[in-house]
């Protein structure tokens, strides 16, 4: 029995060591390419990859960095604030030259941005603002005017239906983000001027196609048949889900139910070209390249940029959809 025990135990510990060694070697093999530190190193803490728009933002961030000779350290937070805080701390520990942060929620950044400031690393917010009493914590914020996006969508709808009575349903984004509150607010402002427009239902579709479809299915069941005149979604992905739900309910999206959404992802242009969607408000995805240029200018002449750099919010309709789709499809 004793003779048997010895070799067995040895085999076992060897196995464990083997696993350890595999992890070790795997680690070494995976990251051999990171020795050179020429030019600027920028860390980018991205929220996640929940939508096509965000994927495009990430892609442009990578392309823009390459064009400018910037080494980009990219971290996907998988929608979790704690992961973003960890990433920013890691960037600081690594001593990057600047940090880009697309914050998943608006509050809770003071501590970690304070650490970045103490380490003299400028932080540029992308796509979303944060809620802080101390605006010195970041260099600038490159975002669109999210209230204006809602207004543009609302104004378009008011113009489209003219004086006709219209019951509107709204598919919101993930709760808690300032973006969602603003897109809602802007839209409500714009339709408040037209007494014939009524926002009758609103629910969160969490920015995803699947959830957008689910929410629209719920709306179609809850409302009397044929009574919904338009749907407003906080992003195109949810709208694409909603379009599918409308089709499955036997209605024609774009004709029976008008659609307006925000972001300008290729699939919505395709839907518009096919006559399934009516309008989208573009949220320019080239925020990171804009931030790089601000950063490079700041490093050159040390003049602080304005606290808020706005990107344009342009509305697109089906007439240009085919061309816009061709222009964008490789980006996403």
């Amino acid at each position, binding site marked *: *029995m*004793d003779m*048997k*025990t*010895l070799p*067995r*135990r040895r085999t*076992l*510990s060897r*196995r*464990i*060591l083997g*696993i*350890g*060694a595999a*992890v*070790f070697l795997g*680690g*070494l093999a*995976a*990251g051999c*390419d*990171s020795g050179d530190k020429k030019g600027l190193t920028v*860390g980018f803490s991205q929220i996640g990859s929940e939508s096509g728009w965000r994927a495009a933002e990430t892609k442009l961030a990578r392309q823009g960095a390459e064009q400018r000779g910037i*080494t*980009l*350290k*990219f*971290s*996907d937070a*998988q*929608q*979790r*604030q*704690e*992961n973003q*805080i*960890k*990433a920013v*701390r*890691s*960037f*600081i*520990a*690594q001593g990057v030259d600047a940090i880009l942060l697309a914050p998943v*929620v*608006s*509050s*809770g*950044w*003071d*501590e970690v941005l304070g650490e970045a400031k103490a*380490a003299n690393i400028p932080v540029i917010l992308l796509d979303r603002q944060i*809620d*802080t*009493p101390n605006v010195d914590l970041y260099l600038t914020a490159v975002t669109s005017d999210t209230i204006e996006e809602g207004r543009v969508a609302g104004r378009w709808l008011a113009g489209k239906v003219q004086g006709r009575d219209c019951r509107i349903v709204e598919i919101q984004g*993930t*709760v*808690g983000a300032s973006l969602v*509150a603003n897109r809602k607010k802007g839209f409500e402002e714009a339709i408040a001027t037209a007494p014939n427009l009524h926002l009758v239902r609103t629910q969160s579709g969490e920015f995803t196609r699947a959830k957008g479809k689910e929410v629209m299915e719920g709306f179609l069941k809850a409302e009397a048949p044929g009574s919904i005149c338009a749907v407003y979604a906080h992003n195109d992905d949810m709208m694409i889900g909603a379009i599918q739900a409308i089709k499955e309910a036997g209605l024609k999206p774009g004709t029976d139910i008008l659609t307006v959404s925000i972001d300008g992802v290729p699939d919505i242009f395709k839907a518009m070209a096919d006559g399934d969607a009516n309008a989208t408000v573009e949220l320019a995805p080239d925020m990171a390249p804009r931030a790089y240029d601000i950063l490079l200018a700041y490093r050159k002449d040390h003049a602080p940029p304005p606290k808020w750099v706005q990107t344009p919010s342009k509305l697109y309709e089906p007439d240009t959809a085919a061309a816009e789709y061709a222009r964008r499809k490789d980006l996403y």
Partner: protein
Amino acid sequence: MMGRFVNTRTLPLLATVVVFVLIYAACAAQYPTMLGLRVMGNLLTDNAFLGILAVGMTVVVVAGGIDLSVGAVMGLTTVALARLIEGAGMPPALAFALVLAGGGLFGAGIGAAVHYLKAPAFIVTLTAMFLARGCALLISTDSIPIHNAAYDTLAGAALALPGGGRLTLVAGIMLATFLAGGVLLHGTRFGARVFALGGNAHFAQLMGINTGRTTILVHAFCSLMAALAGIVFSLYTRSGYALTGTGVELDAIAAVVIGGTLLTGGVGGVAGSFIGVLIQGLILTWITFDGTLSSWWTKIAIGTLLFAFIAVQRLILVVSARYGRPGAGPTAPSPSTRPRPSPGAAAPSAP
């Protein structure tokens, strides 16, 4: 002499430590800054809430249960704190006491449901998870910043380490929680009851252990830890948000399993869970340092590690059940009821 320390119970823990050291060595070889106290301090601070959750989870898992509600309870705690302090103007100390008491009671309710309804802990805690998350979202769907001078002091409190590192208060709370958890599990009668309950609930009852009381206390402790983790998280972000900690219960379970605690109950400890938490943090840090890999590799790495550890644990149990105790032979009792091998048990086989 090795046999004195290497046995069925310690082998999984040793394996965890070896893996941790290897990963750290690999990281440090590539990025020397990762050896610095700054990164170590960050590792403790950034994973403080997860560590505290893992302490509670270890106790539940050792007792043969599981708790899927900890992430939701943590989220609920952060929102409740933000509402109490920011909305109602309550002093933080009172709010802390309230949420801790609430957490403990909530857990006691889970424990009572598990014991008296004879329902699987998986289902009861799943229900509790929905309940807690629902309540949190009902209180507020927005993330609420906390502006309070005392809160800022607590959140910023840290011991400066050389090299720009900081040992923050939240990291300190996490380390203290692990110590307290270790003492509770290995140095008290309650701890012995938890092991007995997890080893074999029926035998534990025959031995005169009040299994109902123990189950309730175990779950109360776990939810108490979840509430503490919520306090720590709200200090960490100085805000409260209902969706905080989504899926974090699974990270905690992963840490516990990687740490060598058996999901079947009766075997384990908090020291391994601590290393399990650090391994997860380390992998994420390394991926961030690299900056070109997708963060989802963390999940793949943790998944692979988990699978490897479960396989190794099973192997250890099978091997030790058949050959582990000299003289016992293949007729040895099943691993879960087998008493701890005497310190010298494996010694004769060592060279």
